[in-house]
């Protein structure tokens, strides 16, 4: 009965649950450290974190970032430092989402959100300017019409998602010192880490949402 063996395989598959994720209706949950579209963060008082140092542009292997710094106006400073990012452009038709800019940033200004569902009909749309990258007054990413944001997508966008310490210390595993962030506040330390910041220590790490990488799909 070799002829029916093939049908046996088919019939054994028929009653299994479907693995298809119907994308326009649902989106797969993203891993916690997924690299998506960038955002430019702000401090909790609304000041911009970017100081226009161009380290992100220097480290970018695809040369997709263009930054020009300018001196802060003394009467209405944009960032706490001496300078701020006057021009900030990212070309998403060059960006390979390697996260090196996020690692290079000394002030945790640029981080990557979990938004990866976007496409362009025009090349000029792909160059995001500072106005589009900067978070809004609630600290949440600005949503462009060609991007597919769903509720909850703006979670896990903040500086806390960097792999390295903001001060560059090699032994960052023991202690973290993330700066506060508009919209997200101070993030709690991860498993196995501690912090000096009482605000961060008070937060329960188990409240952080998002799924772990080892969870299998479907």
């Amino acid at each position: 009965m070799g002829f029916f063996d093939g049908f046996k395989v088919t019939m054994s598959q028929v009653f299994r649950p479907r693995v298809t994720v119907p994308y326009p209706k649902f989106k797969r949950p993203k891993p916690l450290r997924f690299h998506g579209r960038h955002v430019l963060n702000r401090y909790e008082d609304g000041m911009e974190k970017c100081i226009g140092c161009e380290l992100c542009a220097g480290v970018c292997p695809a040369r997709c970032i263009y930054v020009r710094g300018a001196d802060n106006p003394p009467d209405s400073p944009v960032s706490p430092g001496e300078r701020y990012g006057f021009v900030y452009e990212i070309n998403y038709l060059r960006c390979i989402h390697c996260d090196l800019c996020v690692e290079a940033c000394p002030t945790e200004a640029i981080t990557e959100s979990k938004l990866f569902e976007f496409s362009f009909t025009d090349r000029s749309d792909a160059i995001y300017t500072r106005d589009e990258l900067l978070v809004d007054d609630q600290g949440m990413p600005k949503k462009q019409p060609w991007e597919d944001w769903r509720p909850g997508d703006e979670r896990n966008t903040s500086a806390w998602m960097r792999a390295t310490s903001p001060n560059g210390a090699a032994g960052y595993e023991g202690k973290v010192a993330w700066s506060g962030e508009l919209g997200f506040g101070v993030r709690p330390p991860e498993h196995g880490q501690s912090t000096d910041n009482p605000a961060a220590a008070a937060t329960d790490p188990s409240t952080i949402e998002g799924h772990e990488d080892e969870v299998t799909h479907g």
Partner: protein
Amino acid sequence: MGLEDLQHNFLTGSLEELVKWGRRNSVWPATFGLACCALEMMATGAAHFDLSRFGMEIFRASPRQADLMIVAGRVSQKMAPVLRQVYDQMVEPKWVISMGVCASSGGMFNNYAIVQGVDQVVPVDVYSPGCPPGPETLMHSILTLHEMIKTGEITRRREETGRGAELHLDHPGPKVAVGTPR
């Protein structure tokens, strides 16, 4: 009967919608996987994402039966004439999705061997960012393309002179307002 001679009235208006609906739901892609983006393209066609939900599970090996060219990967200078030939062999109406940053702009391969943007060779309708774009990103660009088909003209998209198939720098093309498709 060619659709070029159609005059617009209340009958052909409905016909136009029907034609657009048919085209939208049977965009057959030509196989043009060039690099790692092709793996994501294959994943999009496989069970977990299932391109047949959009009527495009059939990746045609022959350009004559294809409507859409998904340029997935970096295009080398040697591949560019081949790519153009495959595009020319496709019948109208035809669309191009530039998948990934390498196809769109050369990406991190800023060197003499790679074409810095496939829109120097063929006219691109939708650019899909990412390195590589995930299946959702590719599906988003496919849905954007569906929206373009829905709102566009059903007659020739390229002019007789070949205009519209030039460098992107000379001819930006029509601006289509496309929101997030659901």
